[in-house]
């Protein structure tokens, strides 16, 4: 077991050569590759981290935009609701006004129709009562209704007090006329009696005009410058109209209930 000094130094040299060669071909390259890989992976990680940050920022941005959109959507929806509510209320108000208008018109139409009906009823009733009264008077007492009406008018003229007569005399003295309006043609004899009576109680030189008018229901009136005396079936017909009106109202109330 001896040491060969040539081999000993040769091994030292061999080792140093091996050290140099491995350092050149193995360690340097391998460590370089490892460091390069570490740097590359580090760069990749940094890039990934950057991408993650970007993605997070983008996600936060998207979330913020989404919330903005949601808020705006809610706002728009609320505005639309408010507008729709306002529009609905306006439409309701308009419909209510139209209904009220139609109701008023309908009420007015109904009232006009009722008035027309009552007017026609009044006319018809007046005529019927007049005709019936005329026949009754003729049949029972052999009297002429028109003559009786003129008689009543004459009696009223005769029974006027002085104050009332002066109301008619004033216009007569100024050249005015007295108009006698009747619902029928006054017979000539009756006209003569009326002339006499008027001339006697009011004024002797006044003109008397005779007019027939259907507006005066079964009666006669004396008119001069806004003053008049008359007799007609108006009071009776007013009573009848009032009764009919009450009957119609009660009927309508019953139908409603």
């Amino acid at each position, binding site marked *: *077991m*001896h*040491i*060969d000094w*040539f*081999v*000993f*130094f*040769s*091994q*030292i040299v*061999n*080792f140093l*050569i*091996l*050290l140099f*060669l*491995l*350092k050149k*071909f*193995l*360690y340097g*390259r*391998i*460590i*370089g*590759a*490892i460091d*390069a*890989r570490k740097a*590359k*992976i580090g760069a990749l990680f940094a890039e990934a981290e950057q991408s993650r940050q970007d993605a997070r920022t983008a996600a936060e941005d998207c979330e913020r935009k989404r919330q903005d959109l949601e808020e705006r959507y809610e706002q728009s929806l609320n505005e639309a609701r408010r507008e729709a509510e306002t529009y609905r209320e306006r439409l309701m108000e308009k419909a209510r006004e139209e209904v009220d208008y139609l109701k008023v018109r309908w009420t007015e139409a109904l009232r006009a129709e009722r008035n027309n009906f009552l007017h026609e009823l009044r006319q018809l009733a007046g005529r019927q009562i007049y005709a019936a009264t005329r026949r009754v008077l003729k049949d029972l007492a052999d009297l002429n209704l028109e003559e009786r009406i003129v008689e009543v008018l004459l009696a009223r003229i005769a029974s006027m007090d002085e104050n009332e007569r002066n109301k008619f005399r004033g216009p007569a003295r100024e050249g005015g006329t007295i108009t006698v309006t009747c619902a029928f043609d006054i017979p000539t004899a009756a006209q003569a009696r009326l002339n006499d009576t008027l001339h006697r109680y009011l004024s002797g030189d006044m003109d008397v005009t005779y007019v027939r008018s259907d507006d005066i229901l079964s009666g006669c009136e004396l008119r001069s410058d806004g003053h008049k005396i008359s007799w007609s079936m108006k009071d009776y017909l007013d009573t009848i109209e009032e009764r009919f009106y009450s009957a119609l109202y009660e009927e309508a109330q019953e139908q409603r209930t």
Partner: protein
Amino acid sequence: MEVVAINQISPDQVILFSWWFVTISATLLYTWLVMGVLVIGSILITGNLSSDPIMTRWQSVLEVLVETIRSEIGDVVKDGVDTYFPFIGTLFLFILFSNLFTFIPGYVAPTSSLTTTSALAIMVFFAVPIYGISKQGILEYLKEYFRPTFIFFPFHVMGEFSRTLALAVRLFGNLMSHEKVIAILLAVTPLLFPVVMQVLGLLIGIIQAYIFAVLTIVYIASATQSHEEAEHKTKEPNSTNR
């Protein structure tokens, strides 16, 4: 070349060429073989290294090997791993591959020669003060020999020599004795038993390479770090000595 005979105690005895004082023995031949394999293998593998995450299997093996050695060094020394790495890595790889190639018939590990192990131990013997002085400066390094008192100086010097001797003899003894045991067993029981011993021999070879490298790291670390740290960290792993 003839297989090393039982009466030949060392591959140094197998002289292949001799001229004056130049003698080319089997030790040198097998050393060159190991060197050639290491260098050519390194050149081939590192010829097309990839710095991408995807790499070849050989590159992956080499990187694992290099990183393992670096981490082992890093466990002992605090800093300057790459300063010591080429020296310690080369020691480890050379001893490892010298021992592993014993499965080749006719091959005799150069590390079973006391000349080779002595050369390696002498390099460690010189490397330790070189690294220590370069790290701490010559005065600070020499002060270590007089700590804790100057009385310890001879013991420190004796320690330097004795551990160098221990390095050389430990590696030589393990490898040489194993080869002799294999040779004897081949003569006595030439069946399966020598194969089992051969496998055991590979394990011993790996362990011895590791021990040699680790001890070298520890010696360098003790020389490059402060006295207190060195005392704390340096522990002679006597349990690994055989």
